[in-house]
């Protein structure tokens, strides 16, 4: 029974709770039982909060019985990436520099989710300060991929991705500075959206790179993401990056088709500048056929070279990261994991001119993306290759390799990753859908229509195998 409950989608659970056919207490207990059974193999939680979850679930149940749910998130179990500050709950950023950090106040996102009636299950594992790669010399070991625990769940919202895919939570809040929501969503076969820069407040979230940081949700489906967006989107005057624009009902746009939409595909990126594997290309081509069948028109587009986006972002990020961590890097470099330290120490040697020119480069790149999105409604492209082995990142890939996710951090546009199939060995493929500024609704509409037209959302990781691995890990 518990397996059935925690593999409900967020939307399904919400509907059952509203109909009083499912108790938030029962749902939370199912998720807690599954966490107990399998998270020894996944390490998706760095700080679980079972007592708080039970208390909030009981409160939600009482409130709903009295006056009905106050939002679609009421009684829904979720987690927060461990860079989201939480009052009275340890928030480490996975860094030994903050190993004992217990904030006195909640970040704005947690305040909104609590107001919506969500049930906080705990803090999800990340990479150090949401920027270092997988590391074994930080506060806790890295999360593992529930489809194959020898593989990475990607990052840096690693525990969020792994936890949602395994059904330990029905949604999770992550952050995305260069792909850290979309890449774990891709690796773990779930959905994740980086909203437009300024759509969700960053207040109270440990910074990675101020000018590229985005908060955003991960969940099993695009519809689930729309529910999380409804609970978290909105102007926050205390976040200097927040933008005061109308917030739509994101769920209302999900009409199951793509009629009238024009989809642009940057084939030069995919075939020439940063070629994907033949299997990923085939999966993308098949997904585009599905979208065409749903009423969309598909055509090629030209964007600036993909590496230019990454170069601009990395120079800006390294400069900002070094500025944030400078005092500790100068006095206690030993407290940082090597992966993060290696990536950011050279920020000391970048010049102010490099930083400013990179931001001017960003302005040109962002302008080019907006120009293309005046001609097409969305851009569709791969998100990432299927997950590889869980291992330390190679130095050259930290500085020289492009990625398909970074361009939309540079431009600020909303971008969604959805699952578009599986490899022969059972690892998920991923497809990215990017849209116009503040038009998350159309992006989610396309993702939702695709998910409902295909069977990929019916497939789940093998929990029995995860439970066996977890028991072995505990015994060891």
């Amino acid at each position, binding site marked *: 029974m518990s397996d059935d409950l925690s593999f409900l989608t967020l939307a399904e659970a919400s509907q059952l709770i509203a109909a009083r056919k499912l108790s938030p207490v029962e749902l939370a207990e199912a998720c807690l039982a599954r966490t107990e059974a399998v998270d020894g193999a996944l390490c998706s939680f760095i700080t679980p909060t079972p007592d708080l979850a039970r208390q909030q679930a009981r409160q939600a149940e009482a409130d709903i019985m009295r006056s009905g749910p106050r939002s679609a998130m009421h009684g829904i179990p979720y987690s927060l990436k461990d860079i989201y500050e939480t009052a009275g709950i340890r928030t480490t950023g996975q860094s030994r520099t903050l190993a004992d950090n217990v904030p006195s106040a909640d970040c704005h996102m947690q305040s909104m989710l609590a107001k919506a009636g969500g049930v906080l299950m705990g803090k999800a594992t990340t990479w150090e300060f949401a920027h270092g790669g997988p590391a074994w010399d930080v506060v806790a070991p890295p999360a593992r991929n529930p489809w194959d625990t020898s593989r990475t769940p990607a990052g840096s919202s690693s525990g969020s991705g792994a936890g949602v895919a395994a059904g330990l939570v029905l949604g999770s809040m992550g952050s995305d500075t260069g792909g850290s929501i979309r890449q774990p969503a891709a690796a773990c076969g779930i959905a994740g959206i980086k909203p437009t820069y300024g759509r969700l407040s960053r207040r109270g979230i440990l910074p990675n790179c101020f*000018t590229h940081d985005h908060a955003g949700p991960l969940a099993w489906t695009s519809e689930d993401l729309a529910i999380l967006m409804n609970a978290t989107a909105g102007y926050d*005057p*205390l976040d*200097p*990056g*927040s933008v005061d624009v109308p917030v739509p009902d994101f769920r209302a746009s999900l009409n199951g088709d793509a009629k009238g939409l024009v989809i642009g595909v940057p084939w030069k990126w995919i075939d020439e500048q940063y070629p994907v594997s033949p299997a990923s290309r085939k999966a993308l081509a098949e997904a585009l056929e599905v979208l065409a069948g749903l009423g969309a028109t598909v055509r090629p587009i030209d964007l600036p070279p993909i*590496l*230019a986006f990454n*170069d*601009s972002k*990395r*120079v800006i990020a*390294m400069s900002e990261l070094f500025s944030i961590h400078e005092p500790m890097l*100068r006095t206690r*470099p*030993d407290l940082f994991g*090597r992966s993060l*330290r*290696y*990536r950011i*120490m*050279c920020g*000391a*040697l*970048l*010049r102010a001119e*490099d930083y*400013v*020119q*990179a*931001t*001017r*480069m*960003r*302005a*040109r790149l*962002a302008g080019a993306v907006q120009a293309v999105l005046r001609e097409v409604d969305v851009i569709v492209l791969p998100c990432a290759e299927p997950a590889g082995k869980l291992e330390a990142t190679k*130095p*050259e890939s*930290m*500085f*020289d390799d492009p990625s398909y996710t970074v361009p939309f951090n540079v431009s600020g546009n909303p971008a969604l990753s959805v699952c578009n199939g599986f490899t022969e060995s059972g690892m998920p493929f991923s497809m990215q859908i990017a849209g116009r500024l503040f038009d998350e609704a159309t992006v989610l509409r396309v993702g939702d229509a695709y998910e409902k037209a295909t069977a990929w959302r019916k497939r789940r990781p093998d929990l029995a195998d995860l439970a066996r691995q977890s028991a072995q890990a505990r015994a060891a």
Partner: protein
Amino acid sequence: MSESTAASAGKPPATPDQILVMLQQADFALPEPYLSEIINAYGYVQRLAARVQRGYRFDEEPAHVFNPLVFGHAGAAGEVAK
């Protein structure tokens, strides 16, 4: 001490001695093994920075522009040293 591992675009990689001078200028004193790490990493960063596009028109503004309206609450967060 490890060697720098990457050349920049069109220029030879900085030598460890040159990197030590830059670190001194940045007032960044690092003991081993961190000194070797930064010398190793700088080769990649030098190449990365060399790829950043230059040659903008005078009026091309950077991607983030100061908006005084949004910092009305900043005083509550921290004070400027006097």
